[in-house]
């Protein structure tokens, strides 16, 4: 059995205001295995940040249970919070203190040596600017400082909510590499991001939620499914098509150029073409990317939710 670093069961959060009740998270079952980078995806307002805030003890769950490292939270949060580094939404520090002062206060509150601040500042590339006031930082620098704060604890679980927000391309690449390295080193990273290409590049597994509910969860490969479609490029598409038809396959023109073939056995394509003396120049598995999968899934969920609401209103 895989150890779960994060586990929620029937997690629910309601907000009450003058207009009534709003359900942000409804019965969410989340399971994040130890190690690797786990994507946490969902449209705006789907309940990602609320879930993270409940896990970290910043918000109280209305019902349901949560576990971090197998310990129930928020009850046992003080036991495990030392192993959890987190950036929730935008970075929040004292604007009149320098970046270094902000980090020193956090490090000292957990008894970490001041030297760890230097190491964290160096890791995120803020050396030389750590003596400046936080309010003078750009959004990217604020984001780096927030990531530096998570490193003060030497965490076993990193929860990052849009960590590359505001970073320049080089910064995004650096952070992506840091996340990947951390994931490979045994640290579990829960990465909440809107940049789905980034998630697909970095994450080994992912959970997708919509309207506070779980829509899909698993390894990225499992979510996207194995590919059965291939794009085939040959010098003479007409001859190639005829060879494939002769082998019992059904090629169709691919909008991106060349031919598109559905088959469980891609070797059948190369055999058929080689048998006809045609040498292919490209054989590419066509798999839906995470963005397409995500958009299809959340669109379907929105449709279902709208239908539910319409039926509910009609009653």
């Amino acid at each position: 059995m895989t150890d779960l670093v994060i586990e929620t069961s029937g997690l629910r959060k309601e907000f009450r205001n003058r207009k009534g009740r709003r359900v942000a998270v409804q019965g969410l079952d989340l399971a994040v295995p130890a190690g690797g980078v786990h994507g946490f995806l969902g449209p705006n307002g789907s309940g990602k940040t609320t879930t993270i805030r409940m896990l970290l003890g910043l918000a109280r769950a209305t019902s349901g249970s949560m576990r971090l490292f197998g310990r129930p939270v928020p009850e046992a949060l003080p036991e495990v919070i030392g192993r959890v580094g987190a950036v929730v939404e935008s970075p929040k520090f004292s604007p009149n203190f320098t970046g270094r002062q902000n980090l020193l206060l956090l490090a000292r509150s957990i008894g970490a040596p001041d030297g760890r601040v230097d190491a964290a500042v160096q890791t995120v590339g803020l050396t030389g600017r750590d003596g400046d006031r936080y309010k003078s930082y750009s959004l990217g620098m604020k984001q780096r400082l927030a990531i530096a704060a998570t490193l003060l604890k030497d965490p076993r679980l990193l929860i990052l909510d849009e960590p590359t927000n505001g970073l320049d391309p080089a910064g995004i690449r650096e952070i992506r590499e840091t996340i990947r390295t951390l994931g490979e080193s045994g640290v579990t990273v829960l990465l909440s991001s809107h940049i789905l290409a980034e998630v697909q590049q970095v994450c080994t597994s992912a959970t997708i939620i919509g309207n506070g509910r779980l829509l899909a969860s698993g390894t990225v490969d499992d979510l996207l499914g194995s590919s059965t479609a291939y794009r085939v490029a040959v010098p003479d598409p007409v001859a190639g098509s005829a060879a494939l038809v002769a082998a019992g396959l059904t090629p169709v023109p691919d909008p991106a150029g060349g031919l598109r073939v559905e088959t469980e056995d891609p070797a059948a394509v190369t055999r058929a073409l080689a048998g006809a003396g045609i040498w292919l120049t490209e054989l590419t598995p066509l798999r839906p990317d995470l963005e397409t999968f995500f958009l299809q899934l959340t669109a379907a969920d929105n449709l279902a939710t709208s239908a539910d609401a319409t039926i509910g209103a009609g009653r």
Partner: protein
Amino acid sequence: MIPLLRVELTRLRWRRAVWLLLAVAVVVPTIIVISAILTSRPPSAEELTRIEQMVAEEREQPHVQQELESCVDDPDMYGVSPGVTDLEAECASMVEPQVEWYSSYEPLSLRDQMDFGEGVAVVTVLTLLLMLAGTTFIGHDWNSGSMSNQLLFESRRGRIWAAKGLVVTLTAFVVAAVVSSAYWLLLWAVARSRDLPSGTGLLVDSLQFGLRGALFAAGAALAGFALTMLFRSTVATIGVLFALSVGAGVLIAVIGLSGSWQPGPNLEAIAKNGTTYWVEIPEHCYRQMESGNEEVPPNSECDDSRDLSLTQGATYYGVLLLGSSVLSAVSFRRRDVP
């Protein structure tokens, strides 16, 4: 808990707004004490000579002489009895400028300072400024949103509340105690140098006055902190406190509660180790007093003054402080943090 206390102390030390308020808490009492020392100073020989010269010149003025003659002619008009033996001297004392008119002063008295003077004013100033310091210190954590970041490192909210509250209270007490003690020691030293009453008992009384005031100011700082933790905004806290300071007295008067419910007398009761406040007495008491010279028993229905003890004052403010602190701590433990 010790690392947390150190962290909060450092955070307080790095807050410029807090430093500014603490500086004002030193400067204002300093101005008050300097003013008290200067206004209670006897005139120097030089000043006396100047006053005597000025008075002599003034007496020679024609209008003064005319007044003098007028008084001698019609003493009744000047309130002088015509039957006095030396009418001219009596009129001169009434009409001519006197040296005492320009050289009189209230000698410095530590007892008067405690009972009627600036002692309570200093306590009030310290209370307001330190309460504001407690408010602004924690209000910054809420305004910047850094409270949530702090909770990601120390999730035990009770500890966070206690560490911040303790640091605010202790800092406020130390500042108030140092300022108050310096205030009274300086006045005592000046009184001693002027050969005015300055016994050890008086010094101890005044230092105790200062310490009680410092404790009160520290409690106010804790209350400011607790209310800001509750309202999560410096502006909201100041608004509520302002509304209370304006409305509470009026409300108490409208409801018809006695003066013992008013904030002012209770503050004085704490600082002065007991005080007296005044009450309306029934109509029949006036008739009773007019009809004879009957002595009014203390604290009776017809006595228009009432005693308010230190214990009563401390209970009044203690209940308010405890109530706001408990409400604040419970709210902080239970509510979501943005």
